């Protein structure tokens, strides 16, 4: 049986990057607990459009938890109160009738607000562009047994590769550090033979770009790991430190 709830939303509104933002309070009624959080936002926007008001700007794309576009800091946590999901996978059944939900954009100096709940995450693209790739053509899909890779390395690499670059780690970090993101990107390539070749150059280039863009210094609090929708492990950060320091010591 369908259950519906009524909610009060406190939403961050900001007209542009240089404008001063403020919270606006809206009421949405008869929200199905089966709907997703972003569908609830769609209902809010439809309501605002019908009232001739400007809809709330928020990032979204695939709505199935793999593109990394959705963000939103909901009730004190990136991607909301559920664990290991993105905002688009968050269901309204996690909320109760009469709740007030506070919705904010990611807050970090390296992620400036563009409008309302949308922040500029171009910094992550720049870090990837600095070295988060394999620069040689690896050809078509090889036979699975052509290059033997230990199961554990393949698993660890795959786990690291599940990072979708949403930025929840930076949003949760008290230091505004991007180390979990960078460590995942360095790890998933460094663990495989195709990526291993350029591992040292990659670690140095991506860390240099990360520092240049004004992300903070990691203090291993682990808030990133808790809030990561893809459960990227803190041990990736140890691997990044290892890769970076040994690359530097060889220079």
């Amino acid at each position: 049986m369908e259950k519906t709830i009524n909610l009060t939303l406190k939403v961050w509104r900001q007209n542009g990057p240089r404008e001063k933002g403020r919270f606006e309070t809206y009421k949405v009624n008869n929200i199905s607990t089966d709907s997703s959080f972003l569908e609830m936002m769609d209902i809010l926007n439809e309501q605002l459009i019908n009232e001739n008001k400007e809809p709330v700007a928020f990032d979204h794309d695939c709505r199935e938890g793999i593109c990394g576009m959705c963000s939103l800091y909901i009730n004190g946590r990136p991607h909301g109160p559920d664990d290991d999901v993105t905002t688009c996978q968050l269901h309204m059944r996690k909320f109760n009738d009469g709740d007030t939900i506070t919705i904010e954009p990611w807050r970090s100096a390296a992620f400036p607000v563009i409008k309302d709940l949308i922040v500029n995450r171009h910094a992550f693209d720049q870090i990837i562009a600095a070295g988060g790739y394999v620069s040689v053509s690896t050809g078509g899909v090889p036979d699975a047994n052509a290059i033997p890779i230990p199961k554990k390395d393949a698993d660890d690499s795959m786990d690291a590769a599940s990072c979708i670059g949403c930025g929840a780690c930076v949003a949760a970090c008290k230091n505004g550090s991007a180390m979990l993101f960078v460590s995942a990107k360095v790890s998933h390539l460094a663990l495989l033979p195709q990526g291993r070749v350029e591992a040292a150059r990659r670690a140095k280039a991506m860390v240099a770009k990360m520092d240049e863009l004004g992300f903070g210094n990691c203090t291993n609090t682990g808030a990133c790991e808790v809030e990561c929708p893809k459960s990227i492990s803190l041990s990736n950060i140890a691997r990044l430190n290892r890769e970076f320091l040994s690359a530097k010591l060889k220079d």
Partner: protein
Amino acid sequence: MSNLLTASIGRKLLMSISGLFLILFLFVHLTINSFLLLDGVLGFEEGQLFNAGVHFMGTNPLIKIIEPVLALGFLVHIVYSLILTFQNMKARGPQRYASGKKTKGVEWTSQNMLPLGIAIFAFLVVHIYNFYMKMKGILPWEPAEVEFPFFGLTATGEDAYTMVHETFQNLGIVIVYVIGSIALAFHLTHGFWSAFQTIGWNNNIWMPRLKVISSVVAIILGGGFTVIALAQYLFF
């Protein structure tokens, strides 16, 4: 290697290495301090073992060499903690979350390393004023010459034990020492494993191990100094 120390991970490495070095120093310090409790147990007269320990530390050439290195260790650890914290506050930006931070499962200590460090530093100032400056002749101190066993022989030296003993008869000072030791223990529960994480010596298997070792180190050092201060006040 040229620009290692200008990179974030390089600066963290300095925190890590200096921190581990300071922990090593604390273990030596605690070993000598434990002599305060061992006289009766090992059959010496009160204070003899501790005075011998102080004599050993005061006359050993190796200690003379390591002393400025230790001062450097403190300096690096403190200066870089301030640099890193300042950079992190800048990276965080001025805007706070109105709905707060409700992330669960984050160690309280890991988010309060600077306040804990400041508490330890405040204690350190009191501690240096109480003992170190007197032993180094910066503050007036006229100790009696006493005899004590020293590697099977008998040596004479300053009666440091009486000064320590008298200092710890003051309840206020004992409370300051206990607070300093507890702050140290909390600082180390995060600091120790975090240092290994920063060096890169960590993975999913070692993470729980390092956290356990971290707690053990914290309990031995923080608990050790606390017990010694309390025992001096209560039982000696």
